């Protein structure tokens, strides 16, 4: 516009307009001068007519536009404002996990009520859950008041049919989790205002709000079948060992997708307020533990990757190992010189500490950081907890952390590190979001593919002839590492002899190239108690069987077929009775 004015010349236009105005103003004098006064009248009528015509034309165009292209009044009027509405959450196969459903809020306007007693009686009869005090306040008040929310369309019809004056409804959207406690910690929950507070609801809060406007759904990485199997087997172990808490996690090692995440105790996300904080705690992400011997997998992998050790390297476990001011013992002393594979199978603290000493504090600290063990687990969940790590990576710290003491990490952090060791060495982020099939997830290379191959075989050897035997599933080549960490008792400032964390970190299948489909399963029990057999509920007793059962049930869902069983390093473990579990 300004360009047009400039090109025409603003001065020229204003001069032209002034001239027209002057001609109109002085038309009467000119008409009189030319003795044609009627010309002046005609001009004036023409001008007024033209102005009216322009006005009416503008109005006609506006009216036509409003009549033909007016969007007002469209829609059913029942949708909630975009700010509170949320898109649906589904599992990776499209099964509904969370949805906004139309509910109604009940309002009472006492100014329109003729018979308060009748209204009170009818409402309490139709709505037994109605808060009597709130109803009374509304009936005695002087304005329209909200009385009860979350009425389903059926309940609303029931109340509506009562025909009570002064009783009205407002549509409202309510978040509903049709599966109840299944996958509760992974799905999460929302507050009364529709804002996500935990799980996927909290992690993707803004995105889920945006999805609502497009009628779209957000698929999570969770596979409902795997989630249900993991929960079922975990809760069966819970019934057997009665722990304070328990966790099961299933992850695709190549994509980092969390296919299942089960917690005990759990809660119903439809009524989060009715559950305790303890039940709502996502132990997989927000709790940290001294994991015990599951950390030996990291130490062995670091030893292999740095070239400090080979599977056949030997370690003297005949005597306790003195390092710094500490003496390290084996829980079930073998009093033998052990190969690295045997150290893993017997879960020898002495052998692992000797390996860690050879690797050295600097390299151990660097590898732990590279494996993500010194940071919160990289996952979308806002609950992901920060680990407690040694302040100084000296010899003493390295010896302790080599077998899982002196470092507190979340189960998801351990999962992520094991996922890296099992997928060829890439530290991929864990994700609760479904990735496209065949998606290539990249991450820093923390160990070599050769280390992965060797570690998978050692983990397999631990299941065929070591502490993880109870996790074996014929035809699935399960590998794994048990872990039993005594808990630190703040009251006595000592490690408790009765309270422990028992875990099992499993990978299946362990055979085939590193690029083959592979899955990681972690089962953890916090303070399990002896079952009817009275056996010490170590990782091999309390967690490994559950991991095996989970793997057996989920293998068909992830497309892992039975194959020939492998038994690597069998010649190393000549005496199967030697394979007792260690702390």
């Amino acid at each position, binding site marked *: 516009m300004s360009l047009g004015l400039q090109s025409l010349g603003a001065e020229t236009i204003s001069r032209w307009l002034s001239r027209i105005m002057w001609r109109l103003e002085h038309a009467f004098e000119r008409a009189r001068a030319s003795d044609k006064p009627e010309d002046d009248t005609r001009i004036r009528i023409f001008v007024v007519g033209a102005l009216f015509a322009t006005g009416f034309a503008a109005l006609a165009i506006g009216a036509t536009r409003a009549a033909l292209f007016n969007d007002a009044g469209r829609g*059913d009027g029942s949708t909630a404002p975009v700010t509170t509405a949320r898109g649906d959450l589904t599992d990776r196969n499209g099964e*509904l996990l969370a949805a906004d*459903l139309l509910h109604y809020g009940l309002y009472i306007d006492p100014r329109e009520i003729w018979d308060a007693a009748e209204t009170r009686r009818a409402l309490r009869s139709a709505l037994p859950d109605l808060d009597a005090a709130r109803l009374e306040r509304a009936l005695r008040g002087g304005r329209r008041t909200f009385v009860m929310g979350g009425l389903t369309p059926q309940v609303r019809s029931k109340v509506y049919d009562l025909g009570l004056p002064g009783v009205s409804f407002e549509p409202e959207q309510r978040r509903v989790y*049709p599966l109840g*406690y299944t996958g509760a910690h992974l799905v999460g929950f929302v507050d009364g205002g529709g804002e996500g507070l935990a799980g996927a609801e909290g992690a993707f809060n803004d995105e889920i709000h945006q999805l609502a406007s497009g009628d779209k759904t957000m698929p999570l990485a969770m596979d409902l079948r795997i*989630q249900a199997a993991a929960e079922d087997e975990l809760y069966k172990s819970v019934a*057997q060992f009665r722990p304070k808490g328990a966790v099961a996690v299933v992850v695709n090692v190549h994509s980092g997708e969390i296919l299942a995440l089960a917690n005990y105790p759990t809660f119903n996300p439809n009524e989060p307020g009715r559950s305790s904080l303890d039940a709502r705690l996502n132990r997989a992400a927000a709790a940290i533990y001294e994991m015990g011997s599951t950390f030996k997998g990291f130490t062995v992998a670091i030893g292999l990757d740095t070239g400090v050790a080979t599977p056949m390297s030997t370690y003297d476990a005949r005597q306790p190992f003195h390092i710094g001011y500490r003496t390290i013992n084996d829980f079930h002393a073998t009093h033998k010189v052990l190969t690295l594979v045997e150290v893993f199978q017997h879960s020898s603290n002495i052998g692992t500490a000797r390996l860690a000493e050879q690797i050295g504090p600097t390299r151990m600290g660097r590898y732990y950081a590279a494996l993500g063990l010194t940071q919160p687990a990289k996952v979308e969940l806002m609950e992901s907890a920060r680990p407690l790590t040694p302040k100084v990576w000296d010899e003493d710290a390295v010896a302790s952390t080599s077998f899982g003491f002196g470092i507190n990490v979340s189960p998801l952090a351990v999962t992520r590190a094991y996922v890296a060791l099992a997928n060829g060495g890439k530290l991929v982020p864990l994700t609760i979001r479904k990735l496209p099939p065949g998606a290539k997830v990249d991450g820093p290379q923390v160990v070599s593919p050769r280390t992965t191959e060797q570690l998978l075989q050692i983990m397999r050897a631990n299941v065929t002839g070591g502490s993880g035997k109870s996790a074996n599933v014929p035809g699935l080549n399960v590998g794994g590492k048990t872990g039993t960490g005594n808990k630190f008792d703040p009251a006595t400032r000592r490690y408790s002899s009765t309270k422990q964390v028992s875990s099992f970190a499993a990978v299946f299948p362990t055979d085939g190239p590193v690029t083959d489909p592979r899955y990681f399963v972690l089962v953890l029990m916090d303070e399990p108690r002896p079952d009817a057999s009275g056996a010490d509920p170590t990782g091999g007793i309390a967690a490994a069987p559950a991991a095996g059962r989970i793997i057996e049930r989920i293998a068909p869902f992830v497309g892992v077929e039975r194959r020939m069983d492998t038994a690597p390093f069998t010649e190393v473990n000549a005496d199967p009775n030697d394979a007792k579990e260690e702390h």
Partner: protein
Amino acid sequence: MSLLDRKVRGFRLVDLVAVALLVALVLGTYLAKTMAGRERAEIASIERQIGEEKARTRLLEAEVAHLEDPARLERLSVAYLGLAPVSIKRDVGPRDLTDIARTAANTGKLPGEGMSVKPHQPLGFDPTGHPPEPQPASPPVAGAPAR
């Protein structure tokens, strides 16, 4: 006399034409608006019905999801039918047929023949710690956690 100045019964022709045009326009606009209003009301009614149907569909979808909850299905299948997840030991593919035939030839039995199915025990407790909801004929399980 020009056409514009011609008079019919004392009225200028141009005025009569303008009035006729105005009446036609008013009538046309009225009819168009009335018809559009009727159509709009019908559209709004249909859209309201669609909205209600959508809401009902979503309610049914949520109900289906609840009814198909794997934990619930497992509980019911155990309680009523005594079913259990199929053990992977019973999972065979075409490439296993040779082994099966060899086993059958050597032992005279098919693999798994006579193998008893371990009864699948229901969970027997509520992992949320809430009082359990009434379950249809669910047999109680001993050893439920103390919490």
